[in-house]
């Protein structure tokens, strides 16, 4: 790029979209109708691609959640209203799973965000062999989750795992111990470790993309004003990254809330159901038990929970953005 970009009007647009563009589009205020048509046209392909696939199954799942469907066949089933929802909400196992899911989501998302922010800085930094560093960082993200789960299960194996061998030989622990089979809470934390190891890369790359839009001039101006790297990070980088942070936060929250594969591979929900998450519970209900209605109502409860969480995030981030200089 040759032309130096104009300095960006500080605090950037809100999380999910810009402030109404009309404020910055003095050119053709009268063209609102045209804009609506163009927007429809531009969004239509995306809508087809997504809703064409999802609408029928999602609608059907919603309907199923009001009936008592216990086989995969279409047919007549008793209508039970909201009973599936009330039954499932009264199930103790659900609340245990909610606890595990909440813990997993909060801890893994927070760790991934914090570590991801740091990692994104490193990825953007002037390192020697930066291409190699980037290749290394992308490795965990490129490793399929089920291999990741199998790998960590292997590393943490109580009988012959390398973690035990290493820690024992370095005298950091007395002897081989169980990581995934004895203490349910420890097992849950190990699942968090495996998830954070893999997904911090994703967070870092999305934040790196955001970092690239921050004009260098801003940092230089800050340096001239005598701000150190930490101050400049807190006062400039972080506020300008808010939209990107919102994106990865919502993305990772959804993914963490829906966590299934890695639990399935690493612990199978054990020990003593200590790593059973909501989606794992949904899977057991919907597939193993063929309680499709419970499964569907669980799915909609999950959506509601994630949606609320996402809205809270976006709200909080918007507020923090308004407060920033």
């Amino acid at each position, binding site marked *: 790029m040759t032309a130096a970009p104009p300095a960006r009007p500080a605090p950037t647009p809100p999380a999910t979209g810009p402030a109404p563009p009309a404020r910055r589009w003095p050119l053709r205020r009268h063209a609102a109708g045209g804009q609506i048509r163009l927007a429809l046209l531009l969004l239509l392909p995306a809508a087809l691609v997504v809703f064409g696939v999802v609408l*029928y199954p999602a609608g059907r799942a*919603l309907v*199923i959640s009001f009936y008592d*469907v216990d*086989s995969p*066949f279409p047919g007549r089933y008793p209508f039970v209203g909201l009973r599936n929802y009330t039954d499932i909400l009264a199930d103790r196992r659900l609340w245990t799973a909610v606890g595990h899911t909440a813990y997993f989501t909060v801890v893994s998302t927070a760790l991934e965000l914090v570590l991801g922010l740091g990692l994104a800085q490193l990825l953007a930094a002037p390192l020697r062999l930066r291409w190699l560093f980037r290749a290394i960082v992308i490795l965990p993200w490129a490793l399929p989750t089920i291999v990741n789960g199998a790998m960590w299960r292997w590393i943490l194996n109580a009988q012959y795992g390398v973690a035990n061998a290493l820690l024992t030989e370095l005298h950091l622990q007395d002897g081989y111990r*169980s990581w995934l089979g004895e203490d349910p809470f420890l097992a849950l934390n190990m699942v968090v470790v495996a998830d954070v190891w893999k997904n911090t890369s994703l967070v870092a790359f999305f934040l790196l993309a955001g970092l690239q839009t921050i004009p260098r001039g801003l940092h230089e101006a800050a340096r001239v004003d005598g701000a150190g790297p930490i101050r400049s990070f807190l006062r400039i980088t972080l506020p300008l990254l808010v939209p990107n942070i919102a994106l990865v936060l919502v993305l990772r929250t959804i993914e963490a809330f829906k966590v299934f594969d890695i639990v399935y591979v690493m612990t199978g929900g054990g020990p003593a159901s200590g790593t059973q998450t909501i989606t794992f519970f949904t899977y057991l209900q919907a597939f193993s038990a063929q309680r499709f209605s419970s499964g569907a109502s669980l799915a909609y409860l999950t959506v509601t929970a994630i949606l609320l969480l996402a809205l809270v995030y976006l709200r909080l981030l918007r507020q923090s953005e*308004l407060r920033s200089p």
Partner: protein
Amino acid sequence: MSENMSELSRRRLLQLSAISGAGLLLAACDVGGGSDTSGDSGAAGTGEGQIKALFMKQAGYSEDDIRAMTDEFQKKYPKIKVEPSFVAYEALHDKIVAAAPASTFDVVLIDVIWPAEFGSKRIVTDVTDQFPANWKSDMLGGALATAAYRDRYYGVPWILDTKYFFYNTDMLSKAGVDPASLSTWDGVRTAARALKAKKVVEYPLIWSWKQAEALICDYTQLVGAFGGKFLSDDGKSIAFNTGGGLQALEFMKQTLDAKLTNPNSAESLEEDVRKIFSDGQAAMALNWTYLFNAANDPQQSKIAGKVGVASTPSGPAGAPGVNGSMALSVSTGSRNQKAAWTYISYITSAEVQNTYAKSSLPCWTRSYDDPAVASTLPQVVPVAKKQLADLIARPQVPRYNEISQILQAELQNALLNRKPPKKALDDAAEQARTLLS
């Protein structure tokens, strides 16, 4: 901003309800108004044409075996074309369920714990009327039960397996234990104490007690030995929390507390048992037939040639092995059920099973007197002949999977010292009670 938000959330609700409304319209006809026969749309068919069959990878017959059997079948029945698919065992149940309404497969391989579920939901057909009378007398008793539910047959037994008792002959002789003493669980416990006292091995016993079906398999075998029952005789109430069911769990717990059982059993599946046993870190283990060949393979084992195999030790009430067999069924939606049945009849026949006995032992009683079969696994076949005649089934109820999950969790609670055994089983019984009706 906040007025903006609340306005948006109202709009959002409208929008979302419009979307789900549209989906509802689309979907409603399928759940409410659909004809109730649509679940039973299968047709006998002409007995010719194409059929699809769903098998599993690994365990029992290999993919190559099955393809070879199928080729031979097509030479004999050129008018039927069979297209086999193979999935991992873990995916088999879900695949059968998901494919049922679309009738993707005509023949499906089912595990011994599914006939009640699949039969009562009409995912697979009742084949009792086609089931020849002589099969009932010619198949091993344990095998026959594999596809049966409430005296009806929902498939034909095909892969036959149970858990045998394996021991490391080297370690036993070091500790001066006579293998013959391992014929009872008391003897096993005494042997384990001797092995531990003489420091031959730290933990003599290893089991597959991870929170998974494997745990129930081991437990079932012990329940049988201690004379316990999962359900009362009328099948209407839970019985595993008293008598033999409780003693079985107490036995498990005692071997753990006495450090005779490797504590890592609680996170082991059969494969982990195989690895630990093959590496010489355990002297005795319960596992499926495959362990014998695997532990004798120097490529994957350090104890090749030192593997002894016996039928399962007996308790006060006998020595039944857990039924771990699988059967072939005709799916209800199949439009070519006649051809599917022809195919199943062929590949479950004694001739075909004898030919491939090396991969999986046949279901037919007389096969075990066939010298060709007996010579495939000379050490195992005599034991198998005795053991396979005496099998114990896991509860055959439509909601088995749910009961199993509850029981797995509670057994683990007991094994991991989170609850006393009695309390754990009572809690499991309480949760499972409503699932029997």
